[in-house]
């Protein structure tokens, strides 16, 4: 048995012999050969992979199994689907090549009845031919039906096998014992058996094709992954398979090339097109220290970066995994259909028997023939698949569609709830605004000059990672102000910070903080209010118990926030802004972006309470934030949306991750989820109505009124195309454009 392992951390010739020796020392290993350039070792022997990995581990290196890539799995799946499709088409052709001539004969040329001995012989031959068709083209139905039966289970195969089997058996009875039946009932239904098998195979074949199209989005994502990478090992550039790139490899990227794995830029400067992952059309500038992500395309410059996530750990691999999982998960709306599908087949079998009994007891002559036709038709027309397919097919396409727009939906349940959102809370900083505030005004109120104030403030804020703090430090750096020495520091959540800078005790924060420390700000309040009315955030800065300055910081609104918020409101969603800022600033920002409701001065830990408050009012609440300090609020909301900054995938507390910073992603997410739910409802409605109307008609409920009884062949066609209709309707979602809504 050959096993190939990928070795990490081996980059010298002596490593080769160390690893090879460590492996061949195992009794269950016959041979071990390492390829240093590729970073792989091929082992021949009976040892389990775990043993091999352990042996390499003990030798001081890391090994992992080379797994089949998503692309390999996909192409294998496509090959298997193609082979299955061809088989179904072949079986259909054979079945219909008997069924169609028989049907034409029955309809236009002669009677399909058995009277003379010649007719018996002729029909016996046809019957045997039909049996051949059943064995060749319908084997999978009968085998499936039999195996399920033994397992006390029943599925679509059971219905088809019973339906076609009943028609064939009855016809054979007519051929062998015509006199056991009344003259009018001596009719054969071989054409029905052959036609049904042919039509259902055709339906399945078309369904396989249509299903293939539902996974186009994931195919596109998988296609983003390049196959090779150019790494620098021992000072030389070598091209290796993507699977062989290991952590800390130096990867060289030239203009126009795809980034093969995730990493951090070490050298060079370039612009990278990340639109395929984030939906953000503008290329992103990258320079030393910036992150690059697998699957994105380098535009202009050349860079060398250090691989920090490879294989299944790259953002792209995790996105693919997440989308796949979400595509296969089920929203609650499908549960009823699942329950029905679970008991459906035996129920249909019972209906078929009841229908046959009713015809036998109360029907017109020939009762036996009517009973057989109605029972067969009921069995054939019933379609549990349409019910079972209704939800998953739409979810598959909808989740894929969202992923194309840079929206990652975690599960079918999140998708369904997102479609019902009535109120959306938007965190202000980083969601509506860019989250990169800048100092705009320094209004002095004391004896200190601007430079000194900024120098002290920057010192105080240097320890903090709060965006406002960062803006103060940046402003000081930009103006070349010397930052003073920080001696003590304490953050007071919701108020500000205090500390000791250059021997002076300083306070920096909001009005509440100043009041609490009894610092006179009466004269400054109107200045601060003016600043706030311009959507700036004023902060008071006091030194040794005296107000020294008001520093205003402005966080510019993202260009497209206004349009995106309008889209949400247009969709009938109550949009509410949430911020820790003071009322006046909040009001000014809300005004600017067209939001009439807001919660201001909310402490970080109280954000979740605001979500609960809206929920108490009966709203289905969506909460949008950056997923870092608002995790509890995201988790409590009916649907939590995390705005990613580029490529943070799958933020844990969020049901939906928006890969690009724009709020349009949010409107897209809601539009896609609504369209998907509507599609599911259409499918479920169609599948229910089909079965609810089809089964009684097949049983002959219209016969007493209109003399109408369906032929089993029509039932076969209806059933074959009902599930195809569901898949096709789901595929319509592929053409849905969220931007238009």
């Amino acid at each position, binding site marked *: 048995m050959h096993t190939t392992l990928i070795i990490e951390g081996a980059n010298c010739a002596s490593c080769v012999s160390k690893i090879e020796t460590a492996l061949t020392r195992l009794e269950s290993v016959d041979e071990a050969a390492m390829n240093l350039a590729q970073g792989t070792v091929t082992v021949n022997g009976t040892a389990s992979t775990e043993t091999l990995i352990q042996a390499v581990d003990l030798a001081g290196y890391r090994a992992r199994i080379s797994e089949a890539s998503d692309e390999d799995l996909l192409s294998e799946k496509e090959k298997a689907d193609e082979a299955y499709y061809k088989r179904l088409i072949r079986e259909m052709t054979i079945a219909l090549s008997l069924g169609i001539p028989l049907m034409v004969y029955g309809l236009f040329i002669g009677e399909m009845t058995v009277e003379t001995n010649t007719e018996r012989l002729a029909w016996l031959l046809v019957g045997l031919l039909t049996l051949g068709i059943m064995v060749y083209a319908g084997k999978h139905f009968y085998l499936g039906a039999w*195996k399920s039966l033994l397992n006390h*289970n029943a599925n679509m195969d059971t219905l088809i096998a019973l339906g076609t089997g009943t028609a064939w058996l009855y016809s054979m009875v007519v051929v062998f014992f015509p006199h056991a039946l009344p003259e009018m009932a001596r009719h054969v239904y071989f054409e029905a058996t052959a036609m049904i098998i042919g039509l259902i195979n055709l339906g399945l074949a078309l369904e396989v094709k249509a299903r293939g199209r539902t996974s186009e989005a994931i195919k596109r994502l998988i296609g983003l992954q390049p196959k090779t990478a150019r790494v620098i090992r021992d000072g030389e550039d070598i091209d290796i398979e993507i699977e062989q790139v290991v952590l800390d490899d130096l990867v060289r990227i030239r203009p126009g090339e795809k980034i093969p794995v995730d990493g951090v830029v070490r050298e060079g400067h370039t612009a990278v097109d990340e639109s395929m992952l984030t939906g953000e059309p503008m290329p992103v500038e990258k320079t030393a220290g910036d992150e690059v992500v697998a699957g994105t395309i380098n535009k202009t410059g050349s860079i060398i970066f250090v691989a920090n996530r490879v294989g299944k750990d790259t953002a792209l691999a995790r996105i693919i995994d997440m989308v796949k999982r979400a595509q296969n998960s089920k929203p609650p709306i499908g549960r009823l259909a699942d329950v029905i599908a679970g008991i459906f087949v*035996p129920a249909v079998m019972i209906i078929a028997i009841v229908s046959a009994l009713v015809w036998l007891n109360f029907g017109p002559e020939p009762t036996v023939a009517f009973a057989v036709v109605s029972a067969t038709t009921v069995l054939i027309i019933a379609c549990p698949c349409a019910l079972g397919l209704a939800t998953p097919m739409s979810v598959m396409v909808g989740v894929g569609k969202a992923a194309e727009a840079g929206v990652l939906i975690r599960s079918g349940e999140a998708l369904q709830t997102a479609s019902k959102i009535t109120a959306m809370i938007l965190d202000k900083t980083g969601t509506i605004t860019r989250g990169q505030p800048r100092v705009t005004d320094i209004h002095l109120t004391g004896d200190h000059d601007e430079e000194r104030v900024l120098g002290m403030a920057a010192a105080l804020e240097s320890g903090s990672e709060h965006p406002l703090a960062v803006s103060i430090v940046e402003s000081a750096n930009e103006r070349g102000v010397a930052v003073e020495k920080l001696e003590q520091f304490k953050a007071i959540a919701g108020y500000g910070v205090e500390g000791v800078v250059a021997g002076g005790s300083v306070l920096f924060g909001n009005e509440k903080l100043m009041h609490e420390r009894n610092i006179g700000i009466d004269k400054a309040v109107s200045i601060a209010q003016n600043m706030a009315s311009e959507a700036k955030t004023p902060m008071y800065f006091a030194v040794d118990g005296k107000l020294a300055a008001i520093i205003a910081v402005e966080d510019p609104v993202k260009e497209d926030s206004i349009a995106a918020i309008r889209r949400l409101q247009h969709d009938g969603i109550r949009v509410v802004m949430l911020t820790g800022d003071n009322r006046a600033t909040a009001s000014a920002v809300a005004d600017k972006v067209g939001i009439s409701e807001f919660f201001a001065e909310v402490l970080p830990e109280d954000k979740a309470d605001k979500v609960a408050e809206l929920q108490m009012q009966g709203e289905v609440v969506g909460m949008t934030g950056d997923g870092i300090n608002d995790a509890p609020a995201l988790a409590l909301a009916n649907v939590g949306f995390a705005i990613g900054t580029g490529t943070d995938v799958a933020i844990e507390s969020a049901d939906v991750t928006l890969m690009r910073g724009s709020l349009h992603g949010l409107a897209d997410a809601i539009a896609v989820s609504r369209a998907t739910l509507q599609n599911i409802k259409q499918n479920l409605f169609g599948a229910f109505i089909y079965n609810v109307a089809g089964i009684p008609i097949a049983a002959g409920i219209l016969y007493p009124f209109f003399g109408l009884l369906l032929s089993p062949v029509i039932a076969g066609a209806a059933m074959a195309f009902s599930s195809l209709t569901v898949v096709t309707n789901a595929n319509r979602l592929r053409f849905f454009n969220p931007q238009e809504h």
Partner: protein
Amino acid sequence: MILVNLAGVLLIALIVWWFWLYKPGEASVADSALLITVADGTYQPSRIKLPENQPVTLTFLRKDPSPCSATVLFPAFDINEELPLNASKTITLPEMQKGEYAFSCQMQMYRGTLIVG
């Protein structure tokens, strides 16, 4: 005619008993991993007895090309996995409490039950 009607009713009773009421035998999980074959419209075995409070690894081998069989769902544990054709796929289940848990394909046509405890 009475006989025919009686036969019909008996048949209905048989269907109800066979598909809904009867509880078939159980297959035990082996020490390491149990192999479940996905073929001809069924999971074999389809009723699997598992120990309580212990994570378990199941291996699925899908031989059925029908696209329905390509996904297996364990709704109680929020697990869904794609099963490659003619290749094995291992699925690790978390620690489970005593009870019965269903697993199925997306369309509920392939059905199985885990019996924990």
